[in-house]
């Protein structure tokens, strides 16, 4: 039995995730879309906090909310006149997207409800991890060590920086 605060928290998170997700893809103003995305990401971060993954939640806020959404806002401001709506969707296109999305959700939902053997599993134990252990995991070469992906990601980020510079540079 969970504490009431936890349950209330859960509902706040879930409802904001669902509502803002829908709003993100349905609003016709780009800047609002980005803002709703920000809310979704914040809600996700809260979800991580609730699951005891404080570090991950922090990263989610720092990178996603602080970095990516800002990038989105910048690029929207660079490419759009403020206050102007996007063109309305044509019906055909909307039904196409809606059918794909709903069918996908239906199929996955059906699969979840019918076949998920551990879907009823409850939260147990303390899942939190100290920064120290996390650091050891990231820089370890043992089993459950993540040095190689860590380095790969660093190289990837470097490549990304260079690529971004090359692409964005004015010729």
């Amino acid at each position, binding site marked *: 039995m969970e504490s009431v605060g936890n349950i209330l928290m859960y509902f706040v998170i879930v409802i904001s995730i669902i509502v803002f997700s829908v709003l993100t893809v349905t609003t016709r103003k780009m800047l609002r879309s980005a803002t709703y995305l920000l809310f979704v990401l914040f809600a996700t971060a809260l979800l991580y906090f609730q699951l005891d993954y404080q570090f991950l939640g922090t990263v989610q806020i720092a990178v996603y909310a602080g970095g990516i959404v800002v990038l989105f806002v910048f690029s929207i401001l660079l490419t759009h006149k403020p206050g102007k709506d996007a063109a309305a969707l044509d019906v055909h296109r909307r039904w196409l997207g809606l059918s*794909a999305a709903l*069918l*996908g959700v239906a*199929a996955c939902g059906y*699969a979840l409800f*019918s076949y998920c053997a551990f879907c009823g599993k409850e939260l147990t134990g303390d899942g939190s991890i100290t920064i120290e252990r996390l650091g050891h995991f990231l820089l370890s070469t043992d089993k459950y060590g993540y040095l190689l992906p860590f380095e790969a990601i660093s190289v990837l980020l470097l490549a990304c920086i260079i690529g971004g510079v090359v692409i964005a540079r004015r010729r």
Partner: protein
Amino acid sequence: MPLSLTIAVVAIPLFMFFFLGLAGVKMGRKLTGVLGVLGMLVTTVLAYGVALTYFFGDGPQVVDGVRKAVIVFNPDWLSFTDTLVARMGIALDPIAAMMLVVITTISMMVHLYSLGYMSDHHGHPEKGFQRFYADLALFTFSMLGLVVATNLFQIFIFFEMVGVSSYLLIGFYYHSPAAIHASKKAFIVTRLADLFFLLGIMILSFYTGTFDFFNQNGMVGMTDSMEAAQTAITSAGGATFMGCSVMAWALTFIFIGGAGKSAMYPLHIWLPDAMEGPTPVSALIHAATMVVAGVFLVARLFPLYVIEQGAMEVICVVGAFTAFYAAAIACVQSDIKRALAFSTISQIAFMMTSLAVSASQEGLIEIHHGYGLGYMASMFHLFTHAMFKALLFLCAGAIIHAVHSNENDDMHGLHKYMPITSIAFLIGCLAIAGIPPFAGFWSKDEILVACYEKGLGWGIWMSMVAGLTAFYMFRIYYLIFFWKEHKVHTEHRPADQVWTMTVPLIILGAISCVAGFVPMHDLVTWDGAALHTQLNWTVAGTSVAIACVGIALATVMYYKENALPAKMKNAFSGLWNAAYHRFYMDELYQFITHKVIFKAVCVPIAWFDRKFIDGFMNLLADATNQAAYGIRRLQSGSIQGYVYLYIMGALLIAVVSMVCVLI
């Protein structure tokens, strides 16, 4: 001199071909010509040394007074099966050694002569002078390789190579349409004949299991392999095709290959047209050396022909007919080179006939012990004919160079202006007519004796042709050098040519005088043993008498301008016209190829090709095209479309798997 130097004899012209062909343009004309002549001179000296060593040295080639074939080297080249191996080698036997002398002598003379002849073309420097010398070297190499070949496969390859060099040299003036047509004609006709040659090689090697002329240990001549050949033939003897044994077919096919190169009727049509090439080329290739390749081929396979009498009969008939046919045409030609070309055809036919009558002796054993007179005579005539026919052609070249025309109407009365050429030409005429002591008399006499041995009819026929030969040669001679006064143009006063052109005439004239005294019956016989012959005075006397009659007739008709030839022409106008148009053989070929083969065979095939083969391919292409247009819409470039399809596909798989689980 070691016999292995034969390799150098063959290799030097090949080197000269590459060297002159590649570096000639940089070197300039003079240097190229001089180097070509020098290279040929070295080759000639080496070839003489090798031949003299072979004939007169007491090396391993002479066993009990019989000359055996010496295989200088003979590495394997292509192994078809364990036993059927194509080799590339060098072998010396009497005819190969003799041919070395003939080829290098004539080639040397032509190289020297061309220095003068090819130096200018109607007053302009000749274009492609270097190319000419390179091609001459290529031809010399090919021809030498042909005569020293150790097996049928090699001889076929070099057969093709002389064909190629002949093609290149006939088409030397490639800006002249006539030369191009002539070169194509020569190539196509000889290729057609070579197709049969190849068929013959395949049949022969299939049944005998070998390409080689000589046995493996190198010292055994062809005559000793005869028993092996005989076994092979009798083992294949059961196999017949259309009533003849396969061996007869094979040998006939090989003869057809030789007939193509040697211009036997009805494959002779290319040779007169080949005179479009430069005259030195005509002298070298189309008179003296390449055209006797067919004779050489038959001589090479002589032991097989001896066994297969059927094939020999074919050769005999074809040869005898061609000899007369060509001689008759030569009597009326006005282009001197063409007249000489037909004379060449006729003389080669003499050699063929001689070979053929030689083989038709009674039984194998007798031949083994010293018949084969015709074989010896044929090779002898090949030798002497090469000398005096080259002489005649080189004289013709000098005349053409002097008057800038091939027609004898533009000549007449040149004796006064070109005495050396005139005398040289006279020597050639006397030699070919068979007047003693000139070269032709000795060899032609032997041929006639061999023909009389076969049968009186053959002998009389060939004697008649010999008389005709004397007539038409002196007709040409008189029309060129006498008949009437020469119309001298002020700017072109004909005269004997420069020394490079005159010296070869003198040398060849001297050879033509004395070549008959070469003891050929001791040297070149088909089994290598000396043949004891003596002058058959009956035959010799008759033939000299007939030749004299021919010469006398020519003198009466053509020495001084008179109306007799015109009268004769009108009296026998039909015959004259037919002969002048070469008995319409070219027209017949034209009809067969254009009207029959093109219309009846090629047109339907072309139609089938266009409609069905191409149609099928077009159908495939169109179908692909249409299908591509159809599915092109899927490749829209719209990322959202792709994602939609991707999601739908994933859903489909999910649904299917769920349904499968449910079931």
